[in-house]
């Protein structure tokens, strides 16, 4: 039997001040144009207005990007409609699958280029864009490629057919991954798409247009229109769009649902969350600490399913929080392109203001704040990993989605109390449970009102696994067989 070395004695903790040498990923692989147009009908179209997209880590301007007008959106929808009717929906499903396989392969081949650009434009650590965003984006195209010619088996007796033109609006936290979640199932089902990337993170979607070109996808099957909320509104309001898929804030989701009322257009919404990550006293604490850190500091907490509320059983609160704080001191905050970086830049000035405002509210309402000592860069948008203890259910930081690296800690005594607190939110996207007791996991999993429950793990994603929320976290599922349904109509729909 191999001896497992004992943990280093406390004395070695004196290695504080140990500095990592910078290990930046080279930017040379990314070639940016000075300005980008809109990708409509397989060609670049100039927009009348444009804006500058930046790197949030340095505020350095990266490129000029088009602000698509209602007229531009109209042209994109017309191109999508044309491609839909001009062969894409009638193409042999096995042929559709080949295009999707090609896209998946191209994303894999160009993974490093995409990962660097994602970190550059969005601020997320390169190790996350390299090891999470890109592999998962490619996996989504592989997975849905396989369904394209098997829809009759996926939905037996239902005669599945495509819906038409899908309008898709995605957020800035996982720009390319959210694009893959939207485009892959839509195309596999035989639809064409008009996609609007988030205002602050358009560059990987624009680079994706080059993959679309390389894959020789017929013109108009994928159209990308960049811009702010006005562009999104024009897409939602366009009468020739058959289906809207939106991922973003609950506030905007509600506005879209209102706008579509009475139109008969299909809608799926993947909105905000305020997930409870629940740790019982029998949980393996070191693993739980890793799960808590991954749950809230992954991608700077810019994650709709982030474990932003830690519910910890009272008897272990002290040792757990102590371990957590010690772990926080080892997180490396800084240059997103540095391979050592754990926590990158906040995505935008606006998001930073929102985080600062809610953190100030947390302090005002009486919660106790902890931030590890860390030097934040002078330039760019940064926020230190933060833990609030002594949080009450009524505090804003326990109720509102912060969408930043800020954890609110509450305690509980019994499983019933944990459940009551966990479900006491308007959201219902995800939840976490940490315990060694299997029957308790299932008991909790059954009663938590959330679309995804992670037990003894957190923030796991897979193309085969449906994702989506209960309550005000939205409706519809992405991923898995269920993720195809919003993009199909069936004979029993009567159409």
């Amino acid at each position, binding site marked *: 039997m191999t001896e497992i070395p004992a943990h280093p004695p406390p004395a070695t903790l004196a290695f504080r001040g140990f500095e990592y040498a910078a290990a930046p990923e080279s930017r040379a692989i990314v070639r940016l144009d000075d300005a980008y147009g809109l990708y409509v009908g397989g060609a670049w179209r100039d927009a009348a207005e444009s804006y500058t997209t930046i790197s949030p880590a340095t505020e350095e301007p990266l490129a000029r990007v088009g602000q698509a007008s209602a007229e531009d959106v109209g042209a994109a929808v017309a191109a999508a409609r044309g491609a839909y009717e001009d062969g894409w929906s009638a193409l042999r499903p096995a042929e559709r699958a080949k295009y999707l396989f090609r896209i998946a392969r191209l994303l894999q081949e160009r993974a490093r280029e995409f990962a660097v650009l994602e970190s550059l434009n969005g601020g997320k650590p390169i190790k996350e864009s390299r090891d999470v965003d890109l592999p998962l984006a490619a996996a989504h195209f592989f997975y849905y490629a396989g369904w394209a010619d098997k829809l009759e088996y996926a939905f037996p007796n239902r005669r599945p057919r495509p819906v038409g033109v899908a309008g898709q609006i995605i957020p800035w936290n996982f720009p390319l991954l959210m694009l893959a979640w939207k485009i892959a199932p839509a195309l596999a089902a035989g639809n064409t798409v008009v996609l609007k990337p988030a205002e602050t993170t358009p560059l990987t979607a624009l680079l994706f247009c080059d993959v679309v070109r390389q894959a020789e996808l017929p013109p108009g099957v994928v159209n990308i229109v960049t811009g702010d909320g006005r562009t999104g509104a024009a897409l939602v309001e366009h009468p020739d769009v058959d289906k809207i898929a939106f991922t973003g804030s609950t506030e905007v989701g509600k506005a879209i649902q209102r706008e579509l009322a*009475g139109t008969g257009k299909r809608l799926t919404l993947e909105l905000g969350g305020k997930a409870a990550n629940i740790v019982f006293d029998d949980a393996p604490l070191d693993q739980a600490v890793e799960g808590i850190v991954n749950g809230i500091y992954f991608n700077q907490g810019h994650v709709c399913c982030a474990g932003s509320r830690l519910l910890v059983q009272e008897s272990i609160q002290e040792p757990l929080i102590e371990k957590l704080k010690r772990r926080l001191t080892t997180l490396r905050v800084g240059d997103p392109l540095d391979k050592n970086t754990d926590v990158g830049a906040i995505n935008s000035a606006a998001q930073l203001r929102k985080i600062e405002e809610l953190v100030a509210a947390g302090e005002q309402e009486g919660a106790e704040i902890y931030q590890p000592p860390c030097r934040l860069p002078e330039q760019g948008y940064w926020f230190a990993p933060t833990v609030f203890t002594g949080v009450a259910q009524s505090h804003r930081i326990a109720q509102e989605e912060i969408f930043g690296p800020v954890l609110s800690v509450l305690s509980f005594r019994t499983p019933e109390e944990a459940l009551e607190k966990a479900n006491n939110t308007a959201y219902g996207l995800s939840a976490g449970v940490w315990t060694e007791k299997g029957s308790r996991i299932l008991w909790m*999993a059954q009663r938590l009102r959330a*679309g995804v429950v992670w037990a003894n*793990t957190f923030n*796991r994603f897979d193309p085969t*696994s449906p994702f989506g929320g209960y*309550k005000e976290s939205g409706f519809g599922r992405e991923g898995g067989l*269920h993720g195809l349904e919003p993009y199909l109509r069936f004979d*029993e729909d009567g159409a």
Partner: protein
Amino acid sequence: MSRVPVKKTYKLYLGGAFPRSESGRTYEAEEHNIAQASRKDLRDAVRVARGATGKWAGMTAYNRGQVLYRVAEMMEARGAEFAEWTDKLAQVLGGANPVAGPYFNFTMPEPTGVVGIVAPGEPALLGLVSRLAPVLAGGNTAVVVASETHPRAAIELAEVLATSDVPGGVVNILTGRRDELAPHLASHLDVDALDLDRGDAELERAAAENVKRVVLGRGDVQSPYEISSFLELKTVWHPMGQ
């Protein structure tokens, strides 16, 4: 002595009992006096329906199916085909997901919670049963706004439900004015889904208040996939290891 004809006044069905409207109001429809529910009655109905969710959803699908099948038999109407689905939903709509990693991952359907139903006017009984059956088969509880002009079918259904094994509060039926009740039902924050008799921009807009799932039901649809409109899907992950 000849009998004086006295019109019966029908009541609401709320929490397994038959109360008058708290407002005391009635209106006339189908040559009968019908209780005219108020917004307060509607709020009470939602509260009662919320309270009944745990018991109804907590029953085994097998048991729930038997209870509903018996109701369908009593009605001699549609509903049996939905009752049969209760213990099959998880197998058709859920299952294990083969994720690329050392995790066991499965998806299971669950009731969405409290469903508001604005019942179709025609065909009154068949329409109502066709909308209610998938909601109940999925394990939800319901607040029904009965057809304003043809409320007696809903009252008849209430009488059947009252003598069935469906727990009180699982189905609550309000008679009254559609324009008065439906907007309040559509915007109510403790209602999870809304089943409408027809597309209605105003009600659909109100439903966005708490991101309700809106279903535009048709009385003649029999597909079991109707049930899935009133279900949530929950996915559970757990690592596999020694």
